[in-house]
């Protein structure tokens, strides 16, 4: 009488297998998409197209890696798109002024990290809801970049090493993909195996419990914001390199793509659950759809419409699944 488990038979379903089954569905969807598009348009699986898809994925995955950590900790950063554009302009301007690749990179990263720090302070110290707070910084950055420069900051020195950042290859793989894989792996290991990762899940699951356990949850969240900011820094530099300029108009709507990929990958907006592997699948699915629409010659406006539908359906199926198991 005293020890009643609220779930009967489903009580045996472990945490790991619950998150796993959602990823399985996503994996199957990804394979089905690839097969379907390939059947209709064989050029889909050409080497050049696959490289193009991977390069497309790289930018999103880099920022989504940080964003996954943030959303697991039950916070979100909507300023990443605006920051992405600004970072490129700052990096390019410093590069032009100093002719030093190192200074350009460091200043861009420092700027991006500072944006993350400001977001973190707004959320942890001022206790502004992160959705609202980062919309605020997003607006500041969107306006601020035009105060900084009215038009694109062109690459004056044409340093080869800077161009390589976006367009270069390491073996068969584009450099951005290498960066993405490295950052992805770093974040995945942190989330999965370190105390910091475990605390991030814990803060997302119940911040009060974490605070009562003597863990400084505010610092942890601050760190997650800064890491997300730094990820934007790397992505912003790669984007500037690809465009060979700092574009103040770049990155519009980028934050939505990133958050969509994270949510599609099964990370809960309420915090406490999710995985980077899911985010990877989410990024791949979104970018394969993007690519497929182009390859199949469909109207490009569908690039926004289809992911929108996919996200609603994915969230719906996720709800069904969790209801079934709860």
């Amino acid at each position, binding site marked *: *009488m*005293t*020890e*009643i*488990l*609220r*779930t009967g038979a489903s*009580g*045996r379903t*472990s*945490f*790991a297998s619950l998150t796993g089954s959602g990823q399985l569905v996503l994996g199957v969807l990804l394979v089905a998409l690839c097969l379907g598009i390939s059947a209709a348009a064989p050029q889909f699986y050409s080497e050049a197209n696959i490289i193009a898809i991977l390069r497309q994925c790289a930018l999103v995955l880099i920022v989504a890696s940080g964003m996954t950590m943030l959303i697991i900790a039950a916070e979100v950063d909507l300023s990443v798109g605006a920051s992405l554009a600004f970072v490129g302009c700052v990096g390019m301007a410093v590069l032009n002024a100093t002719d030093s690749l190192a200074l350009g990179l460091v200043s861009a990263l420092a700027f991006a990290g500072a944006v993350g720090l400001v977001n973190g302070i707004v959320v942890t110290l001022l206790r502004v809801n992160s959705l609202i707070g980062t919309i605020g910084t997003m607006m500041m950055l969107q306006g601020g970049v035009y105060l900084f420069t009215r038009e694109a900051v062109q690459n004056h020195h044409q340093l080869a090493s800077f161009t390589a950042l976006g367009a270069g290859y390491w073996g068969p793989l584009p450099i951005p993909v290498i960066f993405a894989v490295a950052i992805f792996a770093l974040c995945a290991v942190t989330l999965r*195996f*370190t*105390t*910091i990762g*475990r*605390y991030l*899940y*814990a803060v997302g*699951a*119940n911040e*009060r*419990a*974490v*605070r*009562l*356990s*003597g*863990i*400084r949850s505010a610092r942890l969240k601050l760190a997650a914001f800064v890491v997300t900011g730094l990820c934007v820094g790397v992505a912003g530099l790669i984007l500037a390199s690809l465009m060979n300029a700092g574009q103040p108009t770049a990155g519009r709507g980028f934050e939505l793509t990133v958050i969509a990929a994270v949510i599609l990958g099964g990370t809960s907006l309420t915090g*406490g*659950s999710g995985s980077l592997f899911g985010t990877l699948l989410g990024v791949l699915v979104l970018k394969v759809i993007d690519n497929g629409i182009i390859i199949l010659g469909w109207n490009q406006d569908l690039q926004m419409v289809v992911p929108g539908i996919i996200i609603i359906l994915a969230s719906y199926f996720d709800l069904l699944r969790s209801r079934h198991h709860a």
Partner: protein
Amino acid sequence: MHDDPTLFSDGAAPAIDIGVPALELRGIGKRFPGVLALENVDLTLEPGKVHALMGENGAGKSTLIKILAGVYQRDAGTMRIHGRDVAIRSPRDSLRQGIKVVFQEIALINEFSVAENIFLEGHPTDRLGSIDWRKIRTGCAELFERIGFAIDPMARTGSLPVSQQQMVEIARALAHQASIVVMDEPTSSLTPKEVKLLFTIIRRLTALGIAVLYVSHKLDEVFEIADTVTVLRDGRHISTRPIGSHTDDSLIQDMIGRRIVDLFPRQRGAAGSRVALSVRGLSTTHKLSDISFEARAGEVVGFFGLMGAGRTELAKAIVGYDPISAGAITVDGRTLAPHNTAVGVGLGIGLLSEDRKVEGLMGELPMYQNASLASLGRFARHGFVDAGRERQAVQGFVDRFRIKTPSLTQKVKNLSGGNQQKVLIARWLMRGLKVIVVDEPTRGIDVGAKSEIFSLIDELAGAGLAVVMMTSEMPELLGLSDRIVVLAEGRITATMSRQDATQEMILNAAIGAKGRTSHEFRH
């Protein structure tokens, strides 16, 4: 439903058969996962009478009210209203059967006028089907006049004091032609003057033939207003007697039960002499003032107080979770400064919260991660968690505390209340504390698991921890404490050793201060 405006003008009382009970409950039972909230409870309300329902926290009063209100469905028993068998499956059913429950939390729409709130369930309409505002205004004014309310029907409801909002709720009962009115702790936010007014209104209701169920734990009110008293304890019916046959003592006796002390045999030895926790002159801006006490290693200091006495506030302030405005807390001679939980846990003081779900559990995370949260650093090398060692340590506690879980990876929200509490105690024991503050450690836990939690707390003290226990339950207090401190209105009103303490002394100290400050209790 209320398109007939005549009910407000003819002044008729609800139709009532004299001699037939307004409400008859027989053998009502209600079970929640892991908890038997009500078992075989009988209750009979007579028309035109006030029936008081009393009991300690957790006795089952609110469950019973919620069954009447249609919020919960009963699992067993029968319900008759004016002699007819009824089933109440929703709040709507409850209203339709003539039951009006006035909850502590007032359910009015603040932005609406008083008159609109009165007619919330069915606005009168004119021939064209649009809302007849004139009827709403006049209907409400007539109703207020009849029952003697001096409230402006056009006032914005949110601008009224709580006492008047409560009266609006009661007026709604009349607008619905309710024949049974249930009031849940109606005086908890009223001034003595407003209480008098409320009683006048209750007498008017009974004069109309309405049956009133008055839920309270305040003795003086019950003696003043009730005709009959039913006492519940641990979800069971204990007694139903006319108020005239009760004394303060007999009512308290019924509410608490007897010989509870023996239920929890103490295993540990005497407390040590080393002071583990010292609190000096602690005050907070809202509740606590000048709290000073000490707890020695191996000692259980039990804090008792009625609702709102400041137990939880004290618990959270001591561990550094809530800010303090004055005073000092020292753990093993070291001062808790700066005042936060990171420092607190570092010094060895932690809180087992009264609200497991909101402040303790990470429901969606596996059970083992819940247990190891506070001590994760111990299982890590260079920041990497050694999952093998972690799980092994948790498994040790699962075996030692007999935590019933299908696996270490089970989501903790799927465990029963008792097992969840054991997981949270394990969280602190893995960390290794010197002082543990436990706030209502057995809230929401059924009787069987309660005694296990008791023996765990006994064990904690036996292992040399100082235990500060906040409780509103007498058996817990008397069964576990070495020393008893009574809180009332944020102050310490009595300190006594367990040997010297009697339930009457404790209750008097808990109630007495209240009487002095707000004149709520007669003596």
